């Protein structure tokens, strides 16, 4: 009984922040609550949902958000494995290198997003300057709809790779070294030992990183708002930013809640799908091993 009392305050607060909004969003999504109604909710019988289904901007943002998420997570997982393998070796100054390598993760997103805006600047940023040595055409990184989104993915990878690196590094440290030695005696192939020992044993760490990063990247907001403001021509706008604009700029809470509730469903499906896919790959992989 006393234990329940100790947990209760925290649980209540967690429910207000995590549980209640989901119910509230669903409720708001079937109501009109905008400047027109003075932000008081009045039932509008699914009008928000019909609007959502016909909202091309929303669907474009959904596709863009999925594109951003897939590219960012896939690349950073691979990169993080490489970084973790480097950092797992013995070398002098390893502690310092490790703490310097987590700096990108520790800095506020808005700070570095502003920094990236200068790096991607045309014509004075370093990337444009390097390009201008080889070609007379400028690539206009942040004003070209085909390139700007790659810049956002790049900045996101830079920022979040250290986090996954640390998790994978922790995983690497749980693998006993004699496993590698035994394997060396049998075949001696380094690459093979990576696929036969390292990767299978890292699996739980990879799964948790992938699920966590999928969810976080799907909600991308700060980075885009500061780096591109969703532009050029809406080509980098994410669902999170669109929901924010609907609430704060167009003052339409009902529609914003509809967007958020829908993306919540989408995200859950996405994570379940990723989970199933990972399990399937694992089964196949293990059968091949035997």
């Amino acid at each position: 009984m006393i234990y329940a009392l100790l947990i209760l305050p925290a649980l209540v607060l967690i429910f207000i922040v995590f549980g209640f909004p989901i119910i509230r969003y669903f409720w708001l999504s079937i109501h009109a609550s905008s400047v027109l109604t003075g932000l008081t909710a009045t039932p509008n019988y699914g009008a928000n949902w019909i609007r959502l289904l016909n909202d091309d901007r929303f669907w474009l943002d959904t596709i863009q958000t999925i594109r951003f998420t897939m590219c960012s997570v896939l690349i950073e997982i691979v990169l993080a494995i490489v970084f973790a393998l480097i950092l797992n070796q013995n070398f002098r100054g390893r502690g310092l290198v490790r703490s310097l390598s987590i700096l990108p993760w520790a800095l506020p997103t808005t700070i570095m997003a502003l920094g990236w805006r200068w790096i991607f600047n045309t014509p004075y940023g370093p990337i444009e300057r390097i390009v201008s040595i080889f070609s007379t055409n400028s690539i206009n990184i942040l004003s070209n709809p085909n390139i700007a989104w790659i810049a956002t993915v790049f900045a996101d990878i830079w920022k979040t790779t250290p986090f996954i690196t640390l998790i994978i590094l922790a995983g690497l440290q749980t693998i006993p070294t004699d496993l590698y030695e035994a394997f060396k005696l049998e075949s001696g192939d380094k690459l093979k030992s990576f696929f036969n020992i390292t990767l299978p044993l890292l699996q739980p760490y990879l799964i948790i990183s992938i699920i966590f990063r999928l969810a976080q990247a799907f909600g991308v907001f700060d980075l885009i708002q500061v780096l591109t403001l969703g532009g050029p021509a809406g080509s980098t706008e994410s669902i999170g930013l669109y929901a924010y604009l609907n609430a704060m700029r167009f003052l339409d809470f009902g529609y914003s809640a509809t967007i958020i509730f829908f993306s919540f469903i989408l995200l859950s499906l996405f994570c379940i799908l990723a989970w199933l896919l990972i399990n399937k790959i694992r089964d196949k992989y293990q059968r091949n091993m035997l």
Partner: protein
Amino acid sequence: MKKNYLLITALLMWSLAPFLWQVYTSFSTPEALINPLLKVGNRWTLENYIQVINSEPPFWRYLINSTIVGINATLITLILAIPSAYAINKVKNKIAQSLKVLLLLASLFPYVLLFLSLLEIARKFNLGNSLITLSIPYAALSLPLAILLLSSAFKDLPKDLEEAAIIEGIGMFQRIRWILIPLIAPATASTGIIVFLFTWNEYPIALTWISNIDLITLPVAIARIAGSSVYSIPYGAFAAATVLGAIPLMLIVLLFQKQIISGLTQGAIKG
């Protein structure tokens, strides 16, 4: 061995180059930024820093605001999380397991999507524009991970320790306060630092809760600076602001490297 150092250098370059570019920019005159091969006297300047420090409200105000919210939120989180983390190991296993799964799901959730509901709560109860009330949603958002981290620390303590104290007739609160809390101090420290870093960096909620320019936190201030001058872009001053804003965090990372790493990795392993 040589190849190894090459890889390490590459990794460091990747992590630090964007930041070093900001440092370089922050000390450059506008002329030097446009023409980097400039060799004359006005190559370097402190003007950018002077401009940022003398802005209104002064830049250090944002640092102080962020620190106030960060410390508050960390304290509230720990005060609520420590008893819960202790208790979660004492309740029936089935309940504890399902609670832990829920906490894990909550800590994976992209909290950005919660901003609208939190904004409504702030409007309804008039909680906006205060650094103290802003700490409450921050603490709430940090609680799931904090409870998970601390409960695994409590779980790792030897059982007979508490049993001996029970035999001695020491009450539960005394046991927690004088025996268990000192023992989980390392885990508490890493949890606290991770929560502090999260609140220091948080943006969407600070953006929607605080409109008074004297109370905005550092990330919001930076975004505001970025948005304020879309047409004339004083990148030297921007860079000075990003460098000044990054220094406190660099110090935290260098000082508390061990705690941060153990906190992050514990979260992944035990979660």
